[in-house]
């Protein structure tokens, strides 16, 4: 019976059965390709984030070194009872240097002494000056003072320098390592949270550089962007959804919005340079121009998402309002827009997040200046966080690499916050 059945099967069935195994294997392989593709995406994301977190975390701490400072009036170049003006202009680096020499008498010759002085940041002078100005009685006394370490000394204390590498390949030399080890064993080094990073502007010295100026610049730029892009975007969306007649002009506007969404951001920078800076002569490097350029860039995003939100409002609200005699404008502003607001806000926040991360157009309008001071308004020269990241990434100093990663972490934290807010709003909107 069995053999009868086998032979009665057509040759096609046999051929198919023979190929089935191969086909199933191919099916499994295909699924695996898919899994591998998804996994590759995950791996890329993980490497990217891990790389930045690993590089950036050390920047949030800073090392301090405790020195015995002898506030010797003679060495500081002031009299025994100096005036405040004299104290402000006194030579504080001299006392730091003599304290270091006293502690490490083995430093002989110019270059060795120079290496010794390089353990302490130049901030030390200002720390001492502020101490003395606050308490002039310190003159002539000795005191233990915690002073900020130089970025290179700090990187050794953080364990980023391997003493086993050849001396010529590293910035921290053998002598400095020996001194730092001595200091560490004597309990004269300490790691603290890096407040400088959040409380100061850019600096040539990695240990003194911070993101405060860039944060304010970003804030002012986004403020201008929001004040322009939000009302204009929402009003444009209202017009296109509720008022626009079907004609050529409306088509032209819609095509333009869709095309602008795909124009490379650097082209908006060229527009800003040629029109706002060159033609209207607005100030260079200012958040005002940056904000205008970014608002033109984010307008398409805001218009497109706002239109979708307005479209999603139920027609019954519309008709009810019109039915009781509201005009079209009253219907939109009193009834449709409040219902669509969460969707509109979600789109705007996403647009703002885009603007916050944008760099290229701002390079065009000169926001790449070296900014130490916090800008006080929208017309002051300033830089923004992504541009600060670009500037630090370009800097040859090793100490800036960890600053760059740390600044990226701050930027990403803001972006996550903004996107999280957008997701929250969308969720609440969906519940209604």
């Amino acid at each position, binding site marked *: 019976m069995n053999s009868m059945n086998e032979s009665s099967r057509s040759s096609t069935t046999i051929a198919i059965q023979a190929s089935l195994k191969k086909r199933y294997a191919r099916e499994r392989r295909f699924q695996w390709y898919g899994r591998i593709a998804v996994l590759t995406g995950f791996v890329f994301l993980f490497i990217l984030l891990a790389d930045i977190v690993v590089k950036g975390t050390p920047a949030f701490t800073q090392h301090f070194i405790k020195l015995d400072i002898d506030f010797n009036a003679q060495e500081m170049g002031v009299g025994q009872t100096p005036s405040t003006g004299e104290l402000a202009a006194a030579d504080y680096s001299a006392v730091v240097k003599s304290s270091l020499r006293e502690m490490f008498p083995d430093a002989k010759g110019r270059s060795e002494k120079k290496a010794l002085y390089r353990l302490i940041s130049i901030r030390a002078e200002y720390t001492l000056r502020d101490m003395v100005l606050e308490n002039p009685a310190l003159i002539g006394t000795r005191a233990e003072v915690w002073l900020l370490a130089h970025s290179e000394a700090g990187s050794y204390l953080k364990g980023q320098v391997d003493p086993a590498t050849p001396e010529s390949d590293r910035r921290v030399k053998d002598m400095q390592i020996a001194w730092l080890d001595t200091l560490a064993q004597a309990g004269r080094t300490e790691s603290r949270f890096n407040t400088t990073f959040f409380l100061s502007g850019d600096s040539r010295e990695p240990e003194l550089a911070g993101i405060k100026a860039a944060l304010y610049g970003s804030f002012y730029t986004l403020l201008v962007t929001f004040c322009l892009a939000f009302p204009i975007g929402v009003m444009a969306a209202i017009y296109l959804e509720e008022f626009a007649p079907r004609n050529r002009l409306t088509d032209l506007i819609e095509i333009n919005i869709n095309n602008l969404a795909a124009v490379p951001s650097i082209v908006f920078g060229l527009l800003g340079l*040629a029109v706002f800076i060159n033609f209207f002569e607005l100030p260079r490097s200012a958040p005002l121009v940056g904000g205008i350029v970014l608002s033109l860039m984010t307008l398409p995003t805001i218009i497109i998402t706002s239109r979708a939100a307005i479209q999603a409002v139920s027609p019954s609200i519309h008709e009810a309002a019109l039915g009781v005699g509201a005009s079209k404008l009253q219907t939109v502003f009193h009834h449709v827009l409040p219902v669509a607001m969460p969707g509109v806000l979600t789109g705007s926040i996403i647009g703002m997040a885009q603007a916050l991360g944008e760099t290229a157009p701002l390079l065009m309008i000169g926001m790449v200046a070296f900014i130490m001071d916090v800008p006080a308004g929208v017309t002051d020269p300033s830089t923004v966080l992504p541009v600060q990241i670009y500037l630090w990434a370009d800097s040859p100093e090793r100490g800036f690499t960890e600053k760059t990663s740390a600044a990226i972490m701050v930027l990403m934290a803001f972006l996550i916050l903004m996107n999280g807010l957008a997701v929250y709003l969308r969720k609440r909107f969906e519940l209604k």
Partner: protein
Amino acid sequence: MRQEGGLASLHSLPNHYGYMAAVWAALPAILVLLLWMAFESSILHRLVIAQLPQNVQEMPADELGLYYNQIRGFASGAIDSAQLDRSQIEAAEYYSRVAASFSQLKAVIVVLVAVIGTLLALRRVTPLFRARNHVEKIFEWLLFGCSFIAVLTTLGIVLSVMFEAIRFFQIIPLQDFLFGLQWSPQMAIRANQVAASGSFGFVPLLLGTLLISLVALLIAVPIGLMSAIYLSEYASRNFRAITKPVLEILAGVPTVVYGFFAALTVAPFIRDLGESLGLNVASESALAAGLVMGIMIIPFVMSLSDDIINAVPVSLREASLGMGATMNETIRKVVLPAALPGIVGGVLLAASRAIGETMIVVMAAGLSAKLTINPLEAVTTITVQIVTLLVGDQEFDNPKTLAAFALGLVLFFVTLLLNFIALHVVRKYREQYE
């Protein structure tokens, strides 16, 4: 009979009459103010130049521009008098006088316009006047104006970039730019210097841009497409709900972060890898920039392909599966061919993204323009050159600066063309299945 007096006798709500007065007071005044601000500096310029001695007025345009800037700088107190000649100081005094009277005049005119506007509006306020319709008509125009900004922006981009580019092509012939094989925009400072002319051949930049974009697409298209297929055809609902947003984080990472990652992590890694294999890899290789750019556009390709694959009718899939085809045979022989036009459109959109991307290449690609298709060498791109030419001080009559605008023009039209074709293809594809 209408009753006299009381709110009922008004055509509109009282606040509409108020709105009307406010709009008439504010709008014309703001318009006048904006127009004034737009043209004030150029009128000042004309007036001051006309006051200057004849020999100064006949100076070449760039020297005259510098001369005028010094006058302005002195008037605003930024430059001290030591650097200036007598006629400049006189001109600066004249400039300050005119500027002061201009700002007084501005205030007077703006206030006058506001007052006249208000009076005109007040004259028209009568109980029968249709204030609501009037205000709403104005508002509708305002709304239209807001949406018209999109057109103005495009117009602004085209005109500003075109205008500077035309000035560039008056100095450097168009065919030299389009077909020249060498790009070295170093212009001499003095006209009679040896080797005074830089070369502005666009071909190496185009080749470099295409090379990096090609590497990016070779990374992003297979990964993005396969992920989209897996997520839409195989993955469970839950897996999809978690995976998609996580992969889309890649699209939200700022480009400057990718640039940093490319320049400081990927490029050295690829260089060391190449060295250990005995290959000579440049530290700013096209491969590194392209790889990172590819990572950036994975989610872009993924969500576009996802939309397109989902738009393929279920009936096609069911027919194929009903005939006994396996899932992957259905996908490869039915779904993908059906989705092909849409996927091509998506890839074109991704290509236009890659071509216009700036920060990754500025930070990780090279500066020197080489004619090569070897991804291990350093190449430069259109966007890198725009940034290098324009960052720092610029003078608007130097071919170097103008060249950036010519590149910008090319970039704008290339991306526009790619987008136009892509959107057209995608729309045609969607219509096919509707």
